């Protein structure tokens, strides 16, 4: 069965050469993974189709340097050789190798791996004196020849190589096996695949540049891996000894501007190391895992707490505590991604002679250093945003080298900016492929989709028995949740039902759609769907008046106490009777006259009866939801404040207004039912699969993060208890200033900033007390109710299906994911969600900027707004503008050292003077006298846009008066949002008082979770809260300060 061969390896260690003999077993039967195979190879997994014109075998050099080109899905029939894969692992490291592995595993790419070195006839031993490159090329060629022969000459095999000698040597040896260069290959076979050609020229230019590098050292070399490894081990030991220098295993977590980095140790994230300056930074790029050596204590630097303006650091270090400061000695893992850069305009300063094609491009992300790009299109690309990849950063080079991948468009255009946001967050939203769409069921007027009678028989039929309805934002297409409520057993029991679209029926596990799905991305002006429209807007969408499959959770509640008697989970068939929207539902609840479209054409009597029935259901639902909310409030559920504004666009995509979202009680009602369903599903799957259920947890926040909140509250005369979520919720409820309702809102916003992030996880990985959801005050929670929009819900649906099967005693037939797989999946979903939230937030900022960009700040009244001070810094204030939901800094001292002085009427102007900073106030002294700004003061600011060509625009706030802004005409449409917010907060304060008095029948407070960009409601409160947390401008400082306190 096996024949042994031996190969010789020469390896060196500590300078010595060691000769190692390794066995090498060859076999005749190595699967070829081609559907044309005549020899009955065991081709399990994916196989190359037989209907291609040729197979491509890339040479080692091509795989190592041009893998990106091979990643194009248009290139089909690629056979990777084992030789090439090993070379990638050897030269490019694990990251690149994993990328190759994933490419091979990916069922969407037509490529396979052929283990040529284990095949008896394709293996060629290395000859004496043969260089490694020559040998590898020979191996690859021999594999290509084997392939051709193995398929009995039915398929031409093209070997692509960058080695011109190989082309000359091998091209005429065998008929049917062609050896050509990559460039020829692309020109002959893919002349129309323009991106590939561009990528090719860009990469090859970058490679050429690399060869002609100068040898002058700009940075110290990184230490070799063994020394780092040993240093980390011993460093822990030395740390206990309290020596001044030791190695710390550190990870980039936060950083400010490109020359100043902040690391958190991987092992203990509670403190951080500061790395200042390019020399100390030593080629580390944001995202890398690096090893840091601490500098002696005398060289430690303080963290600046002052507001910074651009590159200029305005605060003095002496008053802040010094932070541990270090320098990077080695990089364990590079984590480069695609970066968006802007080509600077040609201004003649770039050298023209020899390096005329080299351009220093400025990354959009401020944390990334400038990247040197070699290109011939430099002129054409001026002021364009371009996607680039970093190739290398040698110690001889001041900047990293990269190559361009794709041009996005001119900077400043909306489409370009939106694409930039997507790419900077690693979000890929390709259109759905044909193969994916082929998997989809058909629903067209000619071939209407019908339910399968087998499915109907298996499912519980609720079409006749239950009144099912949905409540969503107006114009919502993807209705994934519906509700039903009715009284049974003669009014003694209530049956509450939540019916969720049965997406897993259509999206089979492992299908292409399943593989592609991650989440739906909502940006301020658009969304990218997770599922093709035929599912998301039609077959999975629980539209009114049509039969749909659903996954249901139904509770039998006691009508009086609302205690749960029984819970039923299962697949159902439903027909939604009413597709309501929030405003309509609220109107019905309030008893206002409203026109329900479904009833428009009925007779008056019938209409009244139906309307009464619907009204009854809505009222019961509201009653139940209030009860549920009260129940959670007793457990300590938090109500937090988010800033959210949506941009209203007209037909030309111009922004007409920024509108804060308006809360209605019915939002709350629906959200509460969804939270309840999620909670019960979480219970069910966790109980059935204790080690492999996908749940969502929200860890309690770190107490240090509450410092700012507690101090600010103290300055305003409130006490905040942050020990538990219950205590926090109660003390926030008490902290109400009757004069200024915004105070409570501010405090809630600060509390939100302190929150940690909710995460998906697999139950096998955490102990049960870690499952707690802090914000919702539930012991178990998951996401179940939005399978059209979130991938996690699909996973949960599958788990629930399996759990139901287990309950019935039937085996589900398919093994559910193991704990490890689930945890990997959870990590992936978490990172995707974070990216989605960041993108959403960035796009909101983008639209805010676009809104103000079109207005002249000096004349337009909309650019002047009322702001409230929520934090005091050394040289300025952090303010919040309720009208637009904007947070930002206001400087009281400018670059010339002048300070703001308030005149008699409150108007402010710059004068020379001095600043004094106290914990709760800041005062400026100038020739006109002293003016003081306190926390929660209202001031008037002017909003303008600070534009930069290479980064995102940002809003600039300038103080114009220290008096609250009084709008000339309070009835102006733009101030509507603000007055409504005020009303809302007043009402909240009233509610808080009511609750204290009558606990049983308290009105639920308003949460804001469902106000995400005109989607139907989501129980994902924390996606929003996280967004707010990131909107908080000086998050960095808070974190840094915490780090200092804990480290010192």
């Amino acid at each position, binding site marked *: 069965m096996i024949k042994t061969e031996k190969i010789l390896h020469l390896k060196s260690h500590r300078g*010595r050469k060691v000769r190692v*003999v390794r066995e*090498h077993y060859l076999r005749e039967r190595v699967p070829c993974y081609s559907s044309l195979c005549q020899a009955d190879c065991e081709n399990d997994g994916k196989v190359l189709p037989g209907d291609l014109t040729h197979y491509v075998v890339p040479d080692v050099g091509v795989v190592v340097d041009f893998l990106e080109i091979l990643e194009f899905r248009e290139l089909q029939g690629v056979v990777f050789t084992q030789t090439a894969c090993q070379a990638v692992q050897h030269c490019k490291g694990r990251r690149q190798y994993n990328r190759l592995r994933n490419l091979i595993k990916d069922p969407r790419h037509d490529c396979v791996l052929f283990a040529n070195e284990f095949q008896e006839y394709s293996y060629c031993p290395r000859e004496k004196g043969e260089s490694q490159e020559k040998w590898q090329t020979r191996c690859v060629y021999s594999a290509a020849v084997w392939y051709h022969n193995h398929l009995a000459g039915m398929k031409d095999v093209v070997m692509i190589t960058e080695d011109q000698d190989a082309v000359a040597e091998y091209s005429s040896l065998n008929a049917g096996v062609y050896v050509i260069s990559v460039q020829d290959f692309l020109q002959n076979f893919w002349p129309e695949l323009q991106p590939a050609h561009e990528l090719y020229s860009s990469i090859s230019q970058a490679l050429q540049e690399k060869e002609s590098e100068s040898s002058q050292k700009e940075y110290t070399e990184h230490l070799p891996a063994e020394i780092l490894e040993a240093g980390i081990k011993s460093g822990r030991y030395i740390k206990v000894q309290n020596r001044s220098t030791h190695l710390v295993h550190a990870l980039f977590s936060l950083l400010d501007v490109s020359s100043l980095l902040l690391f958190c140790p991987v092992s203990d994230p509670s403190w951080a190391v500061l790395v200042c300056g390019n020399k100390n930074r030593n080629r580390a790029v944001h995202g890398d895992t690096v090893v840091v050596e601490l500098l002696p204590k005398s060289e430690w630097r303080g963290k600046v707490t002052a507001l910074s303006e651009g590159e200029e650091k305005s605060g003095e270090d002496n008053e802040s505590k010094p932070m541990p400061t270090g320098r990077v000695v080695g990089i364990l893992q590079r984590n480069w991604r695609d970066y968006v850069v802007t080509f600077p305009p040609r201004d003649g300063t770039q050298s023209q002679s020899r390096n005329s094609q080299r351009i220093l491009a400025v990354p959009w992300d401020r944390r990334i250093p400038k990247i040197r790009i070699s290109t011939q299109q430099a002129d054409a690309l001026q002021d364009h945003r371009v996607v680039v990849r970093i190739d290398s950063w040698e110690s001889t080079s001041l900047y990293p080298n990269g190559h361009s991948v794709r041009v996005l468009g001119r900077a400043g255009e909306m489409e370009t900016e939106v694409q930039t946001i997507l790419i900077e967050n690693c979000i890929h939203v390709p259109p759905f492929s044909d193969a994916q769409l082929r998997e989809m069921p058909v629903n067209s007027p000619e071939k209407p989709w019908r339910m399968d009678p087998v499915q109907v028989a298996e499912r519980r039929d609720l079409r006749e028995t239950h009144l099912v309805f949905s409540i969503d934002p107006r114009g919502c297409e993807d209705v994934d949740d519906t509700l039903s409520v009715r009284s049974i057993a003669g009014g003694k029991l209530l049956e509450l039902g939540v019916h969720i679209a049965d997406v897993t029926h259509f999206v089979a596990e492992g299908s292409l759609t399943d593989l592609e799905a991650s989440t739906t991305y909502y940006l301020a002006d658009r969304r990218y769907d997770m599922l093709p429209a035929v599912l998301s807007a039609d077959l999975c969408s629980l539209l009114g008046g049509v039969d749909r499959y659903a996954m249901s959770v139904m509770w039998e509640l006691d009508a009086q106490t609302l205690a749960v008697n029984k819970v039923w989970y299962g697949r159902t068939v439903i027909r939604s009777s009413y597709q309501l929207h929030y405003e309509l539902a609220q109107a019905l609840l309030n008893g206002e006259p409203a026109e329900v479209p479904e009833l428009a054409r009925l007779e008056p009597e019938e209409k009244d009866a139906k309307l009464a029935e619907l009204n009854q259901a809505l009222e019961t639902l509201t009653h139940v939801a209030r009860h549920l909310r009260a129940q959670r409030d007793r457990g300590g559920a938090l109500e937090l404040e988010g800033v959210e504004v949506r941009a209203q666009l007209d037909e030309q995509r111009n922004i007409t207004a920024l509108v804060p979202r308006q809360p209605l009680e019915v939002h709350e009602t629906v959200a509460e039912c969804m939270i309840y369903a999620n909670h019960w599903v979480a219970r069910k799957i966790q109980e059935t699969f204790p080690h492999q259920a996908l749940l969502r947890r929200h860890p309690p926040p770190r107490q240090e993060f509450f410092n700012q909140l507690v101090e600010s509250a103290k300055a305003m005369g409130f006490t905040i208890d942050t020990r538990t979520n219950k205590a926090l919720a109660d003390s926030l409820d008490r902290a109400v200033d009757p004069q200024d309702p915004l105070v409570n809102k501010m405090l809630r916003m600060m509390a939100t900033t302190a929150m940690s992030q909710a995460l998906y996880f697999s139950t096998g990985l955490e102990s049960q007390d870690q499952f707690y959801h802090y914000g919702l005050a539930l012991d178990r929670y998951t996401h179940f109710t939005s399978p059209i929009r979130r991938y996690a819900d699909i996973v949960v649906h599958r788990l629930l299906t399996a759990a139901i099967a287990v309950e019935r005693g039937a085996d589900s037939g398919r093994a559910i994911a193991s704990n490890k797989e689930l945890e990997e999946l959870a990590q992936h979903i978490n990172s995707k969600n974070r990216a989605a939230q960041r993108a959403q937030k960035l796009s909101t900022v983008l639209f805010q900027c676009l809104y103000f960009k079109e207005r002249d700040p000096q004349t337009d009244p909309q650019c002047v707004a009322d702001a409230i001070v929520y934090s005091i810094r050394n040289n300025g204030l952090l303010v919040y503008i309720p009208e637009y939901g904007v947070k930002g800094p206001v400087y009281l001292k400018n670059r010339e050292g002048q300070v703001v002085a308030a005149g008699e009427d409150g108007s402010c102007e710059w004068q020379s003077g001095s600043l004094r900073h106290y914990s709760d106030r800041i005062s400026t002294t100038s020739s006109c006298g002293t003016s003081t700004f306190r926390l929660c003061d209202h001031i008037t600011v002017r909003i303008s846009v600070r534009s930069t060509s290479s980064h995102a625009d940002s809003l600039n706030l300038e103080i114009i008066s220290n008096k609250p802004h009084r709008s000339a005409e309070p009835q102006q449409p733009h101030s509507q949002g603000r007055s409504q917010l005020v009303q809302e907060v007043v009402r909240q304060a009233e509610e808080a008082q009511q609750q204290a008095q009558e606990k049983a029948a308290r009105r639920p407070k308003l949460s804001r979770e469902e106000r995400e960009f005109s989607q139907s409601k989501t129980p994902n409160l924390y996606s929003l809260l996280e967004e707010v947390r990131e909107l908080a401008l000086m998050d960095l400082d808070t974190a840094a300060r915490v780090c200092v306190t804990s480290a010192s």
Partner: protein
Amino acid sequence: MGNVVQRRTRGALRRCPFEVCGNMAGLELLSDQGYRLDGRKATELRKVQARMGVFAQADGSAYLEQGNTKALAVVYGPHEMRGSRSRTRHDQAVINCQYSMATFSTAERKRRPHGDRKSTEMSLHLKQTFEAAVMTQLYPRSQIDIYVKILQSDGGNYSVCVNAATLAVIDAGIPMRDYVCACTVGFVDETPLADLCYAEESGGVSSLALALLPRGGQIALLQMDARLHQDHLEALIEAAMTACKGVSKVLDEVVRQHLQEVSVLTGE
């Protein structure tokens, strides 16, 4: 899944420094296609070749190659006790094992061929293994010496020694309950790998050595000094036993062929 190998001895680290680096670079012990470093599949053994009766002076001798690991085993006895008589057992024979490695057996020349901690431990393991297999009660007050030398080391030293010594004991004509066959198995990516080679052994695998009396399925010795989740132990032992049975078939073949050759020579 804490399958972290804890190295007990510093010697192992010192002996194979470049492999340690290799592991940090992430040698892929089992590829996605199911191939190991040397081209074998997970359950395949290395090529085993053996000869019996390689020395005339000794009572029994054998030479065995398992892949690139090569061992020479020599058996003297049973004979009367030598050295300290106090160890004499009046109801059974005493088995004396000595394990050593040739100075040229590893990639870097070994300083001390025998008598170090590792060799002593290995000798003890061999002794235990053969006490379980040899019918010592037939030879009271006597002694059986088994000397094993590793000529070339490429992983699985213990199992190769056991297999070679089995053949030598058979060559010496000492009655045994059954062949003792040994094999190492490792656990990588939830898959048991049979018969580890050196690169795999040093690549951070939890490995387990097992000596088996194949016919009855009795375990003569089981040794593991790595961490392994309890759930996987059974699968690992199962894989080891299958591998040992494979080895026993090869050994049986060798013995039969040897007998044939000898009987031709003696003209029976």
